């Protein structure tokens, strides 16, 4: 049993290291990068952290259901909704988000309908919906931007993300909606875990996998839509799945994986948002993804048990130890 306690301690240690890194990053960014933590940047950084937590937690289930691509399809599918909402309601932030959500939802419904009624596999269905919706979205936004109306400026931020566009009201919205989403996950923890592991068994038990799946898809849509302004449709999938993938390397327990993903997501979202403020018009999405990819790479290399470096060292140690024992006729077979 003590072996598992040691593994648990490792997770807390890792979380402490991440917190320390985040604390060190603030003075580093101030002095080396010349970042000024004014009111705007505080807002942006807070938004990045909150979104990172949210998408890290939600993304774990997408990763475990082997549906990482659904996040990509969702975010791309949201784009035409932004365009349509702008044409209908103008530059109202709430309307844009609702438009994005409706379009993403329709995209997912279409993917599910395609896979249920035809022989098209889900990856192909996601690919075709992603491309079709995104293409329509780009065409629509280009059309809007070519119109003389001045108020359309800034719609392109949805493509790569623009943290600078985030205002205090956005952060409040992210916090409120995020709290509801996390509450839903806590409430339906057992159901989400079961359908991620064995959906047909959930159905056999009467815990309807399609209902639970629809709920999970809904909170994924909500998360993606909230993240669009920050990460953009192209790289939102990274914000969603990268924290989960990195966290998975460090632990074999779902609850620890979700907590770690939240920590990694917060780090990536916050640091990425701050880095994008170093220079004006630097898109936020790519910065966040660079930071998160680094975390994934480090985790895959270093994580005990699964990490590449760990595996290499173990192979070398085994080789040395057993070669020696065989040479000296020491029998260690069980």
């Amino acid at each position: 049993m003590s072996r598992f306690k040691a593994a648990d301690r490792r997770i807390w240690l890792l979380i402490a290291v991440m917190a320390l890194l985040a604390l060190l990053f603030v003075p580093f960014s101030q002095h080396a990068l010349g970042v000024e933590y004014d009111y705007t940047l505080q807002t942006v950084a807070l938004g990045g952290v909150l979104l990172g937590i949210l998408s890290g937690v939600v993304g774990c289930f997408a990763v475990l259901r082997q549906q990482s691509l659904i996040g990509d399809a969702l975010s791309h599918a949201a784009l035409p909704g932004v365009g349509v909402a702008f044409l209908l309601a103008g530059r109202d932030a709430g309307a844009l988000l609702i438009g994005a959500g409706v379009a993403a939802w329709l995209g997912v419904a279409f993917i599910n309908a395609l896979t249920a009624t035809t022989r098209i596999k889900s990856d192909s269905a996601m690919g075709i919906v992603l491309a079709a919706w995104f293409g329509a979205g780009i065409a629509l936004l280009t059309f809007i931007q070519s119109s003389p109306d001045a108020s359309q400026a800034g719609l392109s931020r949805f493509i790569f993300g623009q943290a600078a566009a985030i205002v205090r009201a956005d952060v409040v919205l992210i916090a409120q909606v995020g709290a509801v989403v996390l509450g839903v996950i806590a409430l339906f923890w057992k159901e989400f875990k079961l359908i991620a592991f064995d959906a047909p068994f959930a159905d056999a038990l009467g815990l309807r996998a399609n209902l639970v799946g629809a709920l999970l898809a809904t909170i994924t849509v909500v998360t993606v839509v909230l993240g669009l302004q920050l990460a953009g449709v192209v790289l939102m999938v990274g914000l969603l799945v990268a924290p989960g993938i990195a966290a998975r390397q460090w632990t074999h327990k779902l609850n620890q994986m979700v907590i770690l993903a939240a920590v990694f997501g917060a780090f990536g979202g916050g640091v990425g948002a701050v880095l994008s403020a170093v220079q004006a018009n630097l898109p936020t999405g790519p910065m966040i993804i660079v930071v998160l990819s680094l975390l994934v790479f480090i985790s895959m290399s270093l994580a005990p048990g699964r990490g590449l470096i760990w595996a290499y060292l173990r192979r070398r140690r085994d080789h040395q130890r057993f070669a020696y024992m065989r040479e000296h006729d020491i029998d260690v077979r069980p």
Partner: protein
Amino acid sequence: MSRPEDTPTRIAFTVEDLTVAYQGKPALWDIDLRVPEGVLMGVIGPNGAGKSTLIKAALDLVPRAAGTVRFYGQTYRQARRLVGYVPQRGSVDWDFPTSVIDVVMMGLYGRLGWLRRPGRAERDAAFAALEQVDLVKFADRQISQLSGGQQQRTFLARALVQDAEIYFMDEPFAAVDAVTERAIVEILRELRGRGKTVIVVHHDLQTVKDYFDRVTLLNVALIASGETGQTFTAQNLKAAYGGRVSYMADSEQGGDDDNDVMLVGD
């Protein structure tokens, strides 16, 4: 469930006119089946014969094109608590971040219902099931570290914890070693001994006579179903496997299983 000695055996599982289609092709065609209580029944047939589909259609996991399925006279929806299920081992990702005891407790999620979390009682029940499959010392093991046989026994424990009356098992002997196979057979016999009905999709024709007191031969349509002695015949096997199997029972009275030879070829 108490059964007075003098009453005739009850029918645990009834299938009538069951037809299932995938993409316009029938996977099961007009199946009629009556399985009495307290038997250990093997379901055999070639690949694509609809063996797994029979289980999935019974448990409402795939839509039925026609026909009805009853468990002690009830629909699956009504009889959910009476039914335990062991899916194919390969149907899940064994790299999922969870432990053996957690997987076993999933068998109780249905009884817990929506939103309620498993607690002390569920843990104890799961440990009791692990004891039956001899996996107690693996309770906290991550499932990614299990051997194939241990994975299978974990799934079996998850079904045992359901404390059902009728069990459906999809290839529980697939790719497990001889020792595990023996252990699983022992558990199945014990279930039968307690009056449970166990229906098992099975592939190894050599062991059918040894393991099962009833057998159902399937090849989209029902070939035969009944007591193993009368049903597991060369003729029925030929009908199920399309003449690709010849069966030589040259020691029908000798009783030595080793002399029963199965030739598989074309």
